[in-house]
């Protein structure tokens, strides 16, 4: 099979660091600003930034329905920080969870901390939290992969991965690698079911 083709939503925020990280892991990447940019993608990263700005850009660019369609046809989604908020049930509704915005506080309360992440082995992942949200509520189908101070900060449901922190700002590619592995297996499933996107 060819390399994964992954999009990174490039309306506003930390999209460049995601592009660099995915490229270093061998994915083909594309900046997504318009619906046409979503065509043929195996997965989409929704980066951190300001969730109000990104949400407005999604609306004004007519991207909401095309992103949901990508998900319905088996494409995977990885939302980080503001991207996690954009994925929640109050926004694009890609995951059965509600994020609380700026829940960890203002910039003065921003921090980094070691996290134990389900499925990434024993070595801690350094989480960089910037005016970060947490998951306030989630449905039974949502798997909590990591928590900080008792708050879920990394979750997965089906082909949607979301975290409150910024793995793209570190040199540790394990969460992106997990997303790519999810994307590869989702693509194999789509191919085996004969649904060629």
């Amino acid at each position, binding site marked *: 099979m060819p390399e994964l083709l992954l999009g990174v939503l490039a309306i*506003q925020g930390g999209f460049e660091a995601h592009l660099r990280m995915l490229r270093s892991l061998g994915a083909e990447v594309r900046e997504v600003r318009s619906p046409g940019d979503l065509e043929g993608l195996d997965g989409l990263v929704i980066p951190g*930034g*300001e969730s109000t700005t990104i949400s407005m850009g999604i609306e004004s660019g007519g991207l909401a329905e095309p992103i949901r369609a990508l998900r319905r046809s088996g494409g995977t989604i990885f939302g980080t920080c503001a991207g996690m908020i954009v994925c929640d049930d109050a926004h694009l509704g890609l995951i059965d969870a509600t994020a609380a915005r700026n829940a960890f506080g203002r910039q003065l309360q921003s921090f980094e*901390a070691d996290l134990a992440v389900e499925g990434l082995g024993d070595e801690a992942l350094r989480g960089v939290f910037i005016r970060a949200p947490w998951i306030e509520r989630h449905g039974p189908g949502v798997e909590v992969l990591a928590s900080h101070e008792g708050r879920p900060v990394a979750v997965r449901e089906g082909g949607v991965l979301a975290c409150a922190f910024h793995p793209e700002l570190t040199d540790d590619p394990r969460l992106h690698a997990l997303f790519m592995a999810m994307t590869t297996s989702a693509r194999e499933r789509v191919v085996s079911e004969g649904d060629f996107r």
Partner: protein
Amino acid sequence: MRQVTERATFRVKTGLAEMLKGGVIMDVVTPEQARIAEDAGACAVMALERVPSDIRRDGGVARMSDPAMIKGIQEAVSIPVMAKARIGHFAEAQVLQALEVDYIDESEVLTPADERHHIDKLAFEVPFVCGATNLGEALRRIGEGAAMIRSKGEAGTGNVVEAVRHMREIIAGIKRLSQLGPEELSAAAKEHQAPLEVVHEVADKGRLPVPLFCAGGIATPADAALMMQLGAEGNFVGSGIFKSADPERRARAIVEATTHFSDPERVAAASIGLGEAMPGLEISELAAADALLQDRGA
């Protein structure tokens, strides 16, 4: 598992600026304006008492804003709130940190408090953004602890020419540095009057270690698109929005042009029907009157 928590690391400080990339930071003087900016898609607001064009017109000493006004703006919006301190006025910066603003702009738009020294920004937990007209200035500010750099441009003029000059200077300087051999970097650091380790880092990576934004004179969507194409990673807009005929629409249009800077059709569509832009000022007249803000705090 250990959960060693650290605040105010370099990564946490630059991290917020990373998240502001591709966005527009708007000057606002009231909570009402802050809400308009947020609704238009601003990724942050700069709380200040007077926009630069009014500071320029009124003259006198321009200082940090009234804390009550900053608090009012913090309560009005959920996006990050920045505020300005005078160059070298570390006590104003301490007040802004106590108010928990998200970023401090050590700004030449206010009247400098110290003619020789900038604030020791490493001593603060809140991150700083500083202006620069060339690479040396940018590297000196980074050496002092700035976590974000913006062009100075010439604030309050609605004239983008100085921002263009500064952005080109900075980008060309980075390109030149990255072509030098290791034995040439020490002389380059001396030339730029900048710390050697920062010079090494820039030469090595081919970019600044912190995000680089544009500020100073943006008045139209096309101005915003121009600066992004010249290498800015986001835009500050001061007087350009709330001194124009229709701030709501212009704010939206400048946000749209900053995101879709490489798509002229989108920039064209965003530019239609905005009414009058802010009135502009000619730089040579200001220079003759010795009224350039960019010369403060090099």
